[in-house]
């Protein structure tokens, strides 16, 4: 395959940045999208142009590091991570536009790399269960109904990639937030801190500059782990309950 790539280049956070056009040829359908960029980078390096900086690590769809807007969609046209997107999803001769995540709470560091530290700070504000090491009760002493465990697992699969934020016209991280609130809120172990958790996490979310949720649903549509939209309903419900009880 031969492709035309329009890629966002930005030297650092202070730079304005712009789209640059590159041609690549000899791309095989079996390559992942990132392997295609590896090919381009080898080409750039050989020509004396600095390779394009982009984030990736596990390249098996689980670490959540990769973060590209491809033709305006986070992770591109398939419901998956960029590292698991393969070139068979594109056509020979196509022009592909590649940009970094778009959100003011995710400032660009360089080229396609953004800073998602805000997600860590949201977790620090309450996205955990306070269990000190070494004194946990016997694991089977608290049974967890299977459906609750399944629900908790299904939303705990969030990889924290930030695609939900990049997809949202408001730049809201409500899906990320809702996934964690739901994961911990479904489990008996998560109950004691449940109401404080939701208030603190929502407060941090807003403080970081993420926008509010207006139920557009682009987040769930873009989520590579298919976190369902109803975690946001759960988030709102928990928040209302918490407020009602004066948390």
């Amino acid at each position, binding site marked *: 395959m031969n492709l035309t790539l329009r890629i966002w280049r930005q*030297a*650092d956070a202070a730079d304005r940045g712009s789209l640059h056009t590159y041609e690549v040829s000899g791309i*095989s359908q*079996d*390559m*992942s999208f990132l392997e295609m960029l*590896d*090919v381009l980078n*080898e080409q750039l*390096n*050989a020509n*004396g*142009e600095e*390779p394009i900086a982009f*984030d*990736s*690590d*596990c*390249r*098996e*769809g*689980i*670490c*959540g*590091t990769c973060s590209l807007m491809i033709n305006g969609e986070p992770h591109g046209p398939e419901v*998956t991570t960029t590292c698991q997107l*393969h070139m*068979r999803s594109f056509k020979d001769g196509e022009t592909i536009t590649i940009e970094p995540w778009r959100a003011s709470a995710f400032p660009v560091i*360089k080229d396609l790399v953004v*800073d*998602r*530290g805000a*997600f*860590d700070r949201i*977790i*620090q*504000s309450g*996205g*955990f*269960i306070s*269990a*000190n*090491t*070494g004194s*946990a009760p016997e*694991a*089977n002493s*608290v*049974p*967890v*109904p*299977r459906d609750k*465990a399944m629900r908790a*697992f299904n939303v*705990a*699969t969030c*990889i924290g990639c930030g695609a939900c934020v990049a997809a949202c016209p408001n730049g809201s991280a409500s899906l990320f937030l809702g996934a964690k609130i739901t*994961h*911990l809120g479904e489990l008996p*172990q998560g109950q004691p801190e449940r109401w404080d958790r939701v208030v603190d996490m929502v407060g941090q979310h807003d403080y970081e500059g993420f926008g509010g949720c207006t139920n557009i649903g682009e987040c769930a549509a873009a989520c590579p782990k298919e976190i369902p939209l109803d975690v946001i309903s759960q988030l709102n419900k928990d928040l209302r309950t918490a407020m009602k009880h004066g948390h």
Partner: protein
Amino acid sequence: MPDTTLTSDRSHDEPSPGQYDDAAGYYTLGDPIVDTKAPQGPIADRWQTRKFEARLVNPANRRKLSIIIVGTGLAGGAAAATLGEAGYNVKSFCYQDSARRAHSIAAQGGINAAKNYKEDGDSVHRLFYDTVKGGDYRSRESNVYRLAEVSVNIIDQCVAQGVPFAREYGGLLDNRSFGGVQVSRTFYARGQTGQQLLIGAYQAMQRQVAAGTVEEFTRHEMLEVIVADGRARGIIARNMVTGEIETHLADVVVLASGGYGNVFFLSTNAMGSNVTAAWRAHRKGAYMANPCYTQIHPTCIPVSGDHQSKLTLMSESLRNDGRIWVPKKKEDCTKDPRDIPEEDRDYYLERIYPSFGNLVPRDIASRQAKNMCDEGRGVGPMVGDFRRGVYLDFKDAIERLGEDAVREKYDNLFDMYERITGENPYEVPMRIYPAVHYVMGGLWVDYDLQSTIPGLFVTGEANFSDHGANRLGASALMQGLADGYFVLPHTIRDYLADGPFDKIDESHEAVVEARKSVEDRIQKFLSINGTRSVDSYHKELGHIMWEYCGMERTAEGLRKAIDMIRELKADFWSNLKVLGSADTLNQSLEKAGRVADFIELGELMCIDALNRRESCGGHFRAESQTEDGEALRHDDEFAYVAAWEFTEGDEPPILHKEDLVYTAIEMKQRSYK
């Protein structure tokens, strides 16, 4: 039930390997290591004894003590959470943009624990026994027993943190069984156990960040360890965003920096996984133990072409239901597998190892897959001269359990396979081939997880101690969390009881020297201005390592590899091309440092492999096999840990041997037939 046979029963007419020293001239022999600091006495009491004897640090004094932890995977994240919670000042470093992205997150299958919830004969002793046997009697008995002992607490801890393990209908925890064992002791969260355990450790750590006991440094790469007055006292790290070279000092340093499988270029490791933290420590005096012990994972998606940047494994748990086969006839290899009748299929693992069948340990499953492909019965596309693939077939499982049940068990794994290969595994058998997955070698540590540099502790995959020459499935997660949550916090307090140590500052000679060496190296990479990219060197190194120091090795091949690596190293330092500058994010520069260290490590791995003229665990020395082609160990010659000391200049490395002594378990030749 078949079991192992005593080594003295083995029948082979080969001369004793004692008369060989394949690696003569490539190393010098140093003093043996005699004391590993493991307590004496009955094995079941040793850890309790050590914990009791380890001195205490009172809570008020903990605030005065500082700990650096490099790496935020299961071992590093768990240690940061636990030590922060205990009240020490912890500084945590990772090269990723968030601690949550460490590669432990990619582990799929599960975590072992001797809970005996199934009442199927499991116990701490049996988990210990299976692990030592599975490691081909090349791990340390005391360490492995401790691992089995604390495994029970790990599950309790993780459940308390909200890790959503699989449950049965009654709400209790579910288990499954994994390769190499005959009991169900593996706890899992679908095919994403590593992710859930890591998120648990990460959240516990973030809680401490909020509490102010842990300070995080993400996008920071450790490039040097500071050894002052004989103790590890800090690190030099590069801020990967600004390029700033930073000095961080502390009372003690912990490396939890993972494994070095990326020395092979293609592996299941994350792209950024590297050996630099460990290798820099090795160059400063920490011994590197058993570097040639590489685990090859049997169920990986085969390579599709030259562009390949990494390999993706399919969880070993698939072997519970999938049946592995190749066509009996070579001419069938290009056929649609669905058109090959049952009588023309060779379910070779079930044939050769009837009692374990598809659940034989990883090294055996891997080697047999290679044998089938070497015989010309591999399937899938031609890569080089071979078809490198065997079938992993779910047809029978789908017939037996129904497609829905199979989907519920393995859903995400099947989806991932389809995404990568473009084939639907519910309809066509999966294709798998072995790939580099995990390294059992690593920095040498004593029973306290302390390296040969005082004050430098090493945990998880970065150390060598628990897995021997092969690692059973679901035991890596167990070790990472055991070290981080339950072992290190006790042993490190004994060390810290002597602290705080004399204050040192940036003007200390050791700091100045470490900083200068980092800065000089970076300048060197940027100034060579040659013609070849870092990746091209990495790929070439990987080819050499896989070809000559992979699953099967010969003395001749290893010697050749050493020469090739030495040439590659010379070329690297004269012909490398790294563009950009040092004072911004520069991914080529980061890779250059890592590949430089991989090249040196690769040479040591080959020397270690050359020295070890026996087949055991993940490696098969062609010179050492039984009449029917099975791996043949030589306990009389090689029941030792090879701990290598770094030497400057052209001096060969120094080999220190630590004898492996088994008192609670009898050394036997492994057999799964």
